[in-house]
């Protein structure tokens, strides 16, 4: 039980960082943490006690396996996270070019 709660704490850490931090790069890192916590939770949900990895190879006897579907989902979700991070980094670099700062309190041309 404790691992699930720790996972959720990691999720909250990510949200806390994304909301309160003032540095663009720290915000991006917080969002990555958010993604990792969800992936970790997915893998934990797939865990079955006393079972092995779900890969069939030559000459291996078939034993109880952990649920393979969440692992496939996590792979997809990692790809999407890669895209998110690349997009955010590209936007952050462009913002730095325009404003010469990573501090979001100084990036404030839109108001109202």
């Amino acid at each position, binding site marked *: 039980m404790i691992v699930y709660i720790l996972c959720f704490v990691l999720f909250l850490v990510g949200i806390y960082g994304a909301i309160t931090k003032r540095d663009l790069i720290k915000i991006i890192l917080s969002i990555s943490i958010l993604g990792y916590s969800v992936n970790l939770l997915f893998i934990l949900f797939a865990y079955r006690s006393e079972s092995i990895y779900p*890969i069939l*190879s*030559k000459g291996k006897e078939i034993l109880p396996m952990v649920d393979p579907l969440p692992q496939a989902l996590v792979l997809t979700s990692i790809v999407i996270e890669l895209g998110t991070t690349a997009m955010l980094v590209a936007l952050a*670099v462009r913002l*730095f070019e325009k404003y*010469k*700062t990573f501090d979001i309190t100084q990036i404030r041309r839109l108001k109202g």
Partner: protein
Amino acid sequence: MHKHEGMTLIVKTVTRISVWMILLYGTYIVFHGHLSPGGGFAGGVIIALALLNVLLAYGRNFVTEWLSIKFLHGLESLAASFFVIIGILGMVYVGYFLGNYLSKGELFNLLSAGTILPLNIVIGIKVGTSLFIVIWFLSELKIDKGE
């Protein structure tokens, strides 16, 4: 040519030898996606990292001459289109999008598992080129020191 660019001679020499091995390993991962862990995405990332190695060691100008970015871009779009076309061929042959119409072969053979192998190859090319292009474009931006 660009002697002053990139890292030291040691790094350049090591990179020159190792990049081909990394590329080969990436290709291996792509081709064995249906037999062992890995597959198109993982192998594609390894391919992109091999190219990134060259970018770091030799600098941006060398890579721009060595690899045509325009060609990589074309390859990426072609691979993406091929993915959809393989899917549509599934509709033609078995009536379902991405349906399997190739022979499933024998278990643990390289040429088995129907359309998974071609799809893996296409994804490997797509991920390898597009990830490298993303890094290449990010390295293009010149950043002056902020306050």
